[in-house]
């Protein structure tokens, strides 16, 4: 199975600006960061959540709680395939009554977000759940939308969106990949 890069839709500066804007939007929508906590979805969502938290702290001067969420056990396709790697969920703050901002790299079918909402609900009863994503690529299969979006990227289903982050991949970028036609 092969994929080749079709286009780079965001470079490092664009990713940086998008995250800064999302941080401001989160603060504006919630009138500060008093009652909010971030929950990054494994794996790239966690790095994004940490970066957003750092920016929010820089802007507001107060730290915001960050957790990480592994949704492997909440997926709706467990009987079809297993998640390749299972990580441990770490939500180090009480969820009850808080506004939880879910953070993920790409919003696609919405199934991951459905699973993440169920996972958060198992920790308590949040006042609200919001969603921040770096890329919204469309093709929703569930009635789910993002509150904060870095960039809307129209894609075809056969394409893939790859988010690269400094922490894991050595550089920041968003790539659109397409099938190189050589099959699996």
């Amino acid at each position: 199975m092969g994929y080749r890069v079709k286009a780079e839709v965001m470079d490092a500066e664009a990713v940086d600006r998008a995250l800064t804007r999302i941080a401001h939007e989160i603060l504006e929508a919630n009138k500060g960061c008093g009652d909010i906590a971030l929950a990054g979805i494994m794996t790239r969502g966690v790095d994004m959540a940490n970066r957003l938290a750092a920016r929010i702290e820089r802007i507001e001067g107060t730290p915001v709680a960050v957790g990480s969420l592994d949704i492997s056990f909440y997926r709706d396709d467990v009987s079809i395939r297993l998640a390749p790697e299972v990580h441990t969920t770490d939500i180090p703050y009480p969820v009850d009554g808080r506004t939880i901002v879910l953070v993920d790299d790409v919003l696609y079918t919405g199934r991951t977000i459905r699973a993440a909402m169920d996972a958060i609900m198992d920790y308590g009863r949040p006042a609200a759940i919001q969603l921040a994503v770096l890329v919204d690529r469309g093709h929703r299969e569930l009635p789910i939308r993002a509150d904060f979006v870095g960039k809307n990227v129209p894609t075809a289903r056969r394409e893939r969106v790859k988010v690269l982050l400094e922490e894991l991949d050595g550089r920041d970028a968003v790539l659109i990949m397409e099938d190189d036609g050589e099959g699996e």
Partner: protein
Amino acid sequence: MLTSKHIMTMDDLSADDITLILDTAESFAEVNQRRIKKLPTLRGRTIVNLFFEPSTRTRMSFEIASKRLSADGVNFTASSSATVKGETLRDTAKTLAAMSCDLVVVRHKYAGAPQMLAEVMDCSIVNGGDGVHEHPTQALLDLYTMRQALGRLEGLRVGIVGDICHSRVAGSLVPALRKVGATPVIIAPPTLMPARPDVLGAEVAYDLDEVLPSLDVAYLLRVQFERATRMPFPSNREYAMLYGMNLARMERLPSHAVVMHPGPMNRGVEISADVADSTRSLILGQVESGVAVRMAVMYLLLGGADSGAAA
């Protein structure tokens, strides 16, 4: 994905399978600390606990594990079933198969009962202890507990002490330790050693006090009076004096070493009460790990099953 569809003996698991199970169990251990200890993962799956022998911790551990994964657990106890009317194991298995369950956990007094079930049923089989043969999930939870306490498995020296010849725990733990690169040492009086201890692949010793200073784990086995055909030693007191773990013997262990026991304990025989309740005893930790490890086993055996052929 695991290599095998069943976990009947340690032969079904590769070293990579064992690591996958232990890593997955770590995630489930976190779930067991939550206020809401339930995941939707195995919704709609049916897990049958088929127990032909008495059990507290193993049966409850499997039952709790299946409930925490939202599977439907059904318990079968031989005393209140058609077994007392003379139904054979084979017919019981066929009856269960006709009710289409997804996983069967079986405990039976005869070695090989899980393999027989696998012949007549399509679902996954987990051995919950068969005779004096194997008890693989016990070995897995023991490995998990050792890894949590000591940070590694490779290179550990684990002394398994006592009733080796009647122990299905030892039957699984010895090969399990070898697979992960640890060294099992079996220590017992000659009357409780198997006829050919060398074939197990463990180091063999008869003097516990001599071995103690070299161990990372002292694993005491329950003396299974109910399986022994005659008393294997003159008195419980003599056994405790020569092979029982007590405070003085615990002092002879290296300072980092830990004490384990699969339960239920004969306090005062293979382990003294003060050792069992000491901070170096991992006995309750083993029970706690059991739930997470069995959740991991169920998840890995049942998850992804539909694509087993295609993957």
